């Protein structure tokens, strides 16, 4: 378990983080979500014992990270935003170096290396110089160095940064595999990345924690106005826009129907609602003998939640 209590970090006189308090249970995959400059990287670097906190305490697996950082470093694997690579080395030698640096014996490294190369899918480039690798492979080497010593806790700072769509999917699959054996902390400002990978989210903003919980828990917000988009094939007859608007406005929970626009052979209406009334809307459209083409949230749940939390005055902060 990771337990941070009143953790804060100042760079000179400028507050970068905190005070924040949070706990992460063993086996969890937790996402640190926040805008650029929210304090995500600072928090992760403190957890990885790269930085010392200005105040507060942090325990990783029951060990005080400030008093005994060496012991914590043995238990943590860290992939920073920019993978810490020695580009003049070949991949296998670099991973051996990283393993020995983490306290493994040469025999242990030799035994572990093939496993790591397989997990990170680096077999084909094991004997290549890092300098010659693509960005995606370099990121994988970064992950491999983080897991070579079989740490209990794995910290990944923006693991998909700069990757192309195919590489993002590959990295996501790799993270899914890593979740089986590690407690994983991931930071990102890409919402879909976090929502697809993590069990629980910590939303950071202005150096504080603005929200904690699963995507569903964070989305629970009384009185929140959501927006859904409804695309309907326009019926024949006079003024189809008014006809559809009338049907939608009559649905329980719909407070406002905006002027429609044409999209994909249909008319798309944006409806403001006080609750999730997608089922009622679809039923009403079908009962009115209209052809429903598409129905969805105008923004994803997580996007709504994130924007609500990080906007000024959006939350006083959990801590």
């Amino acid at each position: 378990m990771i337990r941070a209590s009143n953790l804060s970090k100042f760079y000179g006189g400028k507050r970068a983080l905190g005070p924040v308090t949070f706990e992460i249970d063993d086996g969890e995959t937790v996402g640190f979500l926040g805008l650029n400059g929210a304090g995500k990287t600072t928090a992760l670097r403190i957890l990885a014992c790269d930085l010392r906190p200005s105040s507060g305490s942090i325990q990783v697996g029951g060990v005080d990270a400030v008093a005994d950082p060496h012991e914590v470093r043995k238990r943590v694997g860290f992939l920073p935003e920019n993978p810490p690579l020695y580009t003049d080395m070949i991949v296998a030698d670099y991973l051996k170096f990283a393993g020995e640096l983490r306290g493994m014996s040469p025999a242990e490294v030799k035994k572990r290396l093939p496993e790591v190369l397989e997990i990170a899918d680096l077999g084909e480039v094991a004997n290549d110089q890092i300098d010659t690798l693509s960005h995606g492979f370099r990121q994988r080497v970064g992950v491999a160095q983080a897991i070579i010593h079989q740490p209990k806790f794995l910290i990944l700072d923006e693991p998909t940064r700069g990757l192309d769509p195919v590489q993002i999917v590959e990295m996501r699959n790799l993270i899914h595999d890593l979740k089986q054996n590690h407690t994983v902390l991931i930071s990102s400002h890409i919402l879909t990345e976090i929502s697809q990978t993590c069990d629980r989210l910590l939303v950071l903003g202005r150096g504080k924690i603005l929200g904690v919980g699963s995507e569903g828990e964070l989305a629970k917000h009384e009185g929140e106005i959501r927006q859904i988009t409804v695309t309907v094939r326009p019926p024949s007859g006079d003024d189809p826009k008014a006809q559809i608007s009338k049907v939608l406005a009559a649905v329980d929970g719909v407070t406002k129907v905006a002027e429609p626009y044409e999209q994909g052979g249909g008319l798309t209406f944006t409806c403001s609602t006080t609750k999730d009334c997608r089922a009622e809307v679809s039923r009403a459209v079908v009962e009115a003998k209209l052809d429903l083409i598409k129905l969805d949230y105008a923004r994803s749940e997580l996007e709504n939640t994130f924007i609500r939390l990080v906007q000024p005055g959006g939350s006083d902060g959990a801590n």
Partner: protein
Amino acid sequence: MGPTRIIYRRELGHYFRSPIGWIIAAAVLLIDGILFEALALGGSTEKLSAQVLEQFFYWGTGIPMFCGILLSFRLLAEERQNHSMILLNTSPVRDVHIVLGKFFAALTFMAIVIAISIYMPLLIKVNGKITWSQIFVGYFGMLLYGAAVLAIGIFASSLTRQQIIAALVGALILAVMHLLWQLARIVDSPLKDVFQQLDIWWVHYQNGFMRSVLNLKDVIYYVAVTYFFLLVAVKTLEAKRWQ
């Protein structure tokens, strides 16, 4: 000493893998060879072989001087610039292991470069009358002087992520330490004595090792300077974690 050895091995390998180590070695040896030919062996007056050896060790300190600065300024600054420092910082490795591993790797490479210049004293020995101990003392002095220059360079490298600034700061500290004896000439005691004893080249090298004179106080001086600058480099790294 485990982490120091691991870092030492990687760092030494870097010198042999990358062209920079070979370029530095080739450049300083070429210049030293030319200077030896032109200034130590040349001239219209006849010289004793001991005088030629002195001249060799006079110009020969260019090897550890330039090698020391050129090898050391990148040692920590480059790690920060390339973001690889974070691997060392998040491993169970102390800052002293990082500094020592890099220092000894650079010192080993420098020692190899210095050793390659042995053909010049051997030429003097074959054609003149000098002893092995004279050669040994001179080389020992060059190595001690080089260790001190490396320590100064590593300290400068610990201050910043900009390699150029690190090189300039290292060169500036070294220049000041070379000029202390000049400063000693224009001030009175006790400052005169302090500046004289702190001078890195004239007092401890030129008046000692270069003339094949082995003084314990000169050895202690270079060891102390090396220790001091390595210590402040370690403390600088530690302090940066708190920043």
